[in-house]
């Protein structure tokens, strides 16, 4: 297969089109502008629609409308913009509409900075809006993974009737790497449940994100809970790198994950048995990857995040169940984690014995 050298945001956009996405609405915000810009050029060429919304709020609600009419649709933004979209994401989840939301994460809170960060872990994995819903949330570590996960995201969105979140940090959105793109999918017929006019259907379709009664709302919640539960059994994705004999195990995702990989290689060259557990889905979270670590062998888990205070560490703790001590190497504000900091921290722990 042919490899193309592409920028992260553009690779995600192109893959979305190949996965069948035919509607994109978005609002400018750094560092993800390459995605709407790419879509504005590429979508019309395949008969799709690009709309620059007047706000993040409008954009995600346009996606809600397009998805309600049965078209695969997506929006993208970055951290502050995702906060604005959270109303719409909650409605997409409440109405169980297939869709993709991409959050190219920058530093926070508030305005933060426009540089790469992983401060949106909680928001992306647990609370992307009100009402206690969940999404499958992917955190790619390479551009090829971003491509593969974008393709998969639309398959899962359709399979589950649910929005999916892809949360690359700003570094993944901005870098260029060679990628192999998937084939163009055939666009499916408009699904039966879509609101486009009842036509010959014989009954009306009503797309809504709430129950008409308490009983209906509880049924909606219970049905969603079953779906979320199924994800934890079937859809967890995680990479374990040199963990089989590791005494020092890094927990890191996205850009922190790829930096930890380099640290593992370098530490192993220096004779230190390091390994890495890199979640690829942070919802559902790979708790078992941590639970199954041999606590008689693993001396430390080192949680590495571009977020201060650390966030993923809460899930790591739940996986580890207190059996292995956890240390951290953290950066934030747009500072990329340095391999040397990770190595230094690990060597200090080794010295302590």
């Amino acid at each position, binding site marked *: 297969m042919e490899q193309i050298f592409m920028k992260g945001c553009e690779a995600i956009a192109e893959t979305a089109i190949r996965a069948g996405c035919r509607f994109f609405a978005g609002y400018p915000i750094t560092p993800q502008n390459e995605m709407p810009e790419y879509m504005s050029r590429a979508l019309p060429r395949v008969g799709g*629609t690009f709309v620059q919304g007047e706000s993040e709020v409008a*954009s995600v609600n346009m996606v*809600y*409308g*397009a998805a309600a009419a*049965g*078209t695969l649709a997506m929006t993208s933004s970055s951290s502050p913009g995702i906060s604005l979209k959270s109303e719409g994401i909650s409605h997409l989840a409440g109405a169980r509409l297939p869709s993709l939301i991409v959050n190219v994460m920058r530093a926070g809170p508030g305005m933060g900075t426009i540089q790469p960060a992983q401060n949106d872990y909680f928001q992306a994995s647990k609370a992307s809006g009100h009402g206690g819903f969940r999404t499958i949330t992917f955190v790619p570590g390479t551009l090829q993974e971003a491509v593969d996960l974008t393709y998969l995201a639309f398959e899962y969105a359709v399979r589950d009737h649910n929005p999916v979140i892809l949360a690359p940090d700003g570094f993944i959105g901005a870098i260029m790497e060679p990628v192999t793109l998937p084939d163009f999918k055939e666009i499916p017929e408009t699904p039966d449940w879509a609101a*486009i*006019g009842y036509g010959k259907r014989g009954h009306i*379709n009503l797309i809504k994100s709430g129950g008409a009664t308490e009983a209906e709302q509880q049924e909606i919640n219970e049905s969603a809970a079953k779906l979320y539960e199924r994800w934890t059994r079937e859809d967890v994705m995680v990479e374990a790198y040199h963990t089989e004999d590791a005494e020092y195990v890094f927990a890191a995702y996205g850009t922190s994950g790829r930096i930890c990989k380099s640290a593992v290689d370098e530490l192993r060259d220096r004779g230190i048995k390091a390994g890495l557990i890199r979640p690829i889905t942070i919802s559902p979270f790979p708790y078992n990857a941590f639970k199954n670590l041999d606590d008689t062998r693993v001396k430390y888990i080192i949680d590495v995040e571009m977020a201060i205070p650390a966030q993923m560490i809460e899930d790591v703790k739940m996986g580890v169940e207190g059996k292995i001590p956890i240390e951290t190497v953290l950066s934030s504000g747009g500072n990329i984690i340095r391999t040397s900091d990770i190595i230094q921290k690990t060597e200090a722990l080794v010295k302590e014995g």
Partner: protein
Amino acid sequence: MEKIYTRPNALNKSVSGYCPGCMHSTITKITAQVIDELGIGERTVCVLPVGCGTLGALYWNLDMVISAHGRAPAVATGVKRVSPDSVVFTYQGDGDLASIGLSEIMHAANRGENYTVLFINNSIYGMTGGQMAPTTLVGQKTTTTPGGRNPDTDGFPMKMAELIAQLTSPVYVARFAVNTPAYINKAKEGIRKAFQNQLDGKGFSLVEILSNCPTTWGMSPIDTLSYINDNTLAEFPLGVFKDREEEQS
């Protein structure tokens, strides 16, 4: 015998849950009649707001999408852009359209989205119990303006039809009332035109319809009719504020 009056097909057989005397029933009925008369029910999508209009989900015999509060024009944009053969309309109240959804309506109008907006303006938040709306009249008492709307702190009623008519893209912007049979007939013709424009691919049409709220205005339904005549119409003049057809002829 020839049947000359029946329930429109665009409505189901439910009994209306709107408050007694509420003009939502009238406006819903004449809209449903227009949809029937144009023969477009099977390809129509009604985009509902948050507010009393959400109750339409129980009555319209049409495909429907319920929006988040104020976002109906954005949702309708998504529906219409991916399904251009569908006939799309939003049905929004004044809190929904003129307050929380001000941005969405202005920009949908400015893009000239080819759909129809029905804006039901009763100068108050009905569903939440009678709070001040952007369209509340000066001096009008609401649960959040117990001394009456004070323009020094609350501003003046927002005239949405006039605001939207200033934009270049919209093709038809008009305001009607439904507090007399003659006004009802005129409003129905305005609604028909707003749908016909969409069918002809002309672009964005908005019909504002002055309505009442006997419950939160604290009046008998019959008194709301004269209140509209004496007060609402003085603030919100009826008329066509923009009609591209007439501009061109």
